[in-house]
């Protein structure tokens, strides 16, 4: 910004001789400080509650410090092993030393948990040996360890330890896409009866797509009514649309259970009306149907509101103009009204879609076995299996998916055109 001074030859000054820029920046400093102070609390909040957790998640998805931290001697000793047969005595000695120390410090359990994710049974192998290793006073350690548990003579146990001896690992991401390291270190697909996440990713995507589509089909006419009805009726309708917002998620979801379950209201009505027999009650819940119905209901307001706010800005004269120009009601809608609502459709759809792939409570409660989302496994690995690395890897993939969809949307529609209200 010194270009002005350079080209004009001499600096502009105020009446009392202070350079204009200095004077201006002095005048603006107060405003700048004020602006920074106003934004600071939110920025700090976002940093602590949003950005740091995401960063933490990304870190956890590749973090594999357990082995190198708690078995440092073994990691050092095994680095020279060629990966064939069984390592030499020095590695066993280091392992015995690490296991005994880890058992005393009660840190070896972390190594056991970490390695057990890769090969079932590693937990008991590590823990049992660690407990016994405390009493081991002298070598030869190789014979001693194999004597405690003959699994120590297996090549793949040592290959696993060597592979996971770095600070970072890709094995969580491999697991998240149903792959794993083979014994020789190459990457291979898991056996078919252990494959789960890739299918779930796609199921989550297409079910979210279906939910978005249904929300659009149901929400569009409602938003249209809301935007065109006189104020009094539209206010009432708006309350009905917003009602789900004011009810707790759990209450809403359990209400759907009461309505949809096989002894529920809907089935009772259908039986009473003679549409189905008592023995052939429809299974509307604890499957995909249940998830789609309940989530469409829950996410409907997120579709209606952006649509409404866009439709509200379209004056009725456009439709009238189109009709006066000779278009039928349908043509006028298709060529004049609908194109103007595209930005609302885009905003509502991406909102519902992104929210939908992130939902987990509703699918967990009404989805049964077939209506669950990938997020349910994030929750599962967070809370039950405690495999936080895998949870973080799946979460990171989800985050990447959302970003991809967002960029795609930006490319197709343009974020500037997104109208949320």
């Amino acid at each position, binding site marked *: 910004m010194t270009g002005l001074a350079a080209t004009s030859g001499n600096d502009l000054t105020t009446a009392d001789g202070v350079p204009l820029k200095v004077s201006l920046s002095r005048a603006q400093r107060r405003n700048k400080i004020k602006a920074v102070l106003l934004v600071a609390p939110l920025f700090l909040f976002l940093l602590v*509650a*949003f950005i740091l*957790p*995401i960063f*933490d*998640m990304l870190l956890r998805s590749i973090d594999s410090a357990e082995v190198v931290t708690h078995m440092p001697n073994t990691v050092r000793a095994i680095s020279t092993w060629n990966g064939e047969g069984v390592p030499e005595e020095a590695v066993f000695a280091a392992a015995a030393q690490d296991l005994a120390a880890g058992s005393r*410090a*009660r*840190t*070896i*359990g*972390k190594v*056991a*948990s970490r390695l*057990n*994710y890769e090969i*079932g*049974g*590693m*937990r*008991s192998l590590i*823990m049992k040996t660690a407990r016994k290793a405390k009493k081991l006073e002298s070598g030869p350690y190789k014979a001693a360890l194999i004597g405690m548990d003959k699994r120590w003579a297996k090549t793949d146990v040592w290959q696993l330890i060597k592979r996971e001896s770095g600070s970072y690992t890709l094995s969580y991401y491999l697991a998240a896409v149903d792959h794993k390291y083979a014994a020789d270190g190459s990457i291979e697909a898991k056996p078919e*009866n*252990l*494959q*789960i996440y890739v*299918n*779930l990713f796609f*199921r989550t995507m297409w079910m979210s797509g279906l939910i978005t589509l249904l929300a659009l089909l149901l929400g569009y006419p409602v938003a249209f009514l809301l935007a065109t009805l006189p104020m009094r009726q539209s206010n009432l309708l708006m309350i009905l649309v917003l009602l789900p917002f004011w009810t707790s998620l759990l209450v809403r979801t359990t209400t759907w259970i009461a309505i949809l*379950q*096989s*002894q529920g209201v809907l089935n009772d009505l259908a039986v009473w009306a003679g549409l189905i027999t008592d023995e052939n009650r429809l299974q509307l819940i*604890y499957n995909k149907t249940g998830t789609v119905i309940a989530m469409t209901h829950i996410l409907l307001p997120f579709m209606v509101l952006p649509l409404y706010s866009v439709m509200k800005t379209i004056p009725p004269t456009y439709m009238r103009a189109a009709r006066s120009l000779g278009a039928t009601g349908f043509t006028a809608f298709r060529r004049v009204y609908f194109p103007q609502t595209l930005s609302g459709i885009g905003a509502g759809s991406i909102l519902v879609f*992104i*929210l939908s792939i*992130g*939902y*987990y*409570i509703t699918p*967990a409660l009404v989805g*049964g*076995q*077939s209506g*669950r989302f990938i*997020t349910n*496994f*994030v*929750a*599962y690995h*967070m*809370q*039950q*299996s*405690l*495999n936080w690395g895998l*949870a973080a890897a799946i*979460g990171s993939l*989800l*985050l990447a998916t*959302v970003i991809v969809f967002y960029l795609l949307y930006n490319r197709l529609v343009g974020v500037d055109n997104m109208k949320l209200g």
Partner: protein
Amino acid sequence: MNKHIKVLGMAAFAGAFSATAMADSLTVVSWGGAYTASQKSAYHDPWTKKTGDTIVNVDKAQAGLAGLRAQVEAGNVTWDLVDMLPSEAQIACDEGLVDIINHDQDLAASPDGVAPSKDFIAGSLSECFVPQIVYSNIIAFNTTMFSGKQPSTMKDVFDLKGFPGKRSLQKKPINNLEWALMADGVPTDKVYDMLRTEEGVNRAFAKLDTIKDNVIWWEEGAQPPQLLADKEVAFASGYNGRIFNAQVNEKQPFQIIWDAQVFEIDGWVVPKGKMSKVKAYLSFATDTQRLADQAKYISYGPARVSSAALVSTHATTGIDMKPHMPTYGPNFKTALHKNDEFWADHLDELTERFNAWLAR
């Protein structure tokens, strides 16, 4: 928006939400429902009466290990005592998330002076764990769903032709795989040997396949009695105490199939650094009288030998509690002791396979 981020954030900041523990207040994490109610009646209320300390119940035992890990990692442990299964307690102990318990020093001896290490059921004590109860995973049914012959064995549960209707099972491999094998004719003492082999696991899943389409999976302990009461299902697996509670306190027409029950113990762990704070309470809550008292409220067997003789009748209805206990002779004939070591080793891979199987 992204729930997983929230979960992570919550785990990291779990402390902030439950920072209710004051000097004279203990935060006790347990399983909720009828079980927490029995603990409140048998341990908490007498303790409050005796010392004036208040006790805050948190129903987070389902995610107890996860919560402990988050709190210890964040360096802000707010739980004072956690109810836990021994397999999880072992992991928590191995990872240094809980304090070591010196049973004979920290706990009360029996009234006639038997040291705790001798008085608790053999093999139930471990380095960081004090047992409270013996409970059982059983399958119960709603008697009104069967007009003719009533089911009585695990084979009947897998017999869709003879006993039609939906089944509700817990959404995890534990118990289900054992039951599948036992229903398929595997003797009780061979179940875990079988499950250690690929063929055994295949066999268990193949057996489960025969009823898979008729299973509604539950996740919270309160769900099975509800599903049975609503007649959404004919059979439901569950904890025997919860079913007992529905039978006795809610007068539900439920019946327990004791055949092939999988029993295990349940008890306390002390989160890292909390031993000095909870030692007095822990000693009180696990003494002979308190464990016997708990059996007045729920049909779980006391984990102390000296308590067994004191088990009497139900606190409100006055019925004899003994026939409702998992360890009662006729109930115990075909019982299987859950193998914690097996599950500590194989839970990860079998859960993965179970989930993949579910999703197919």
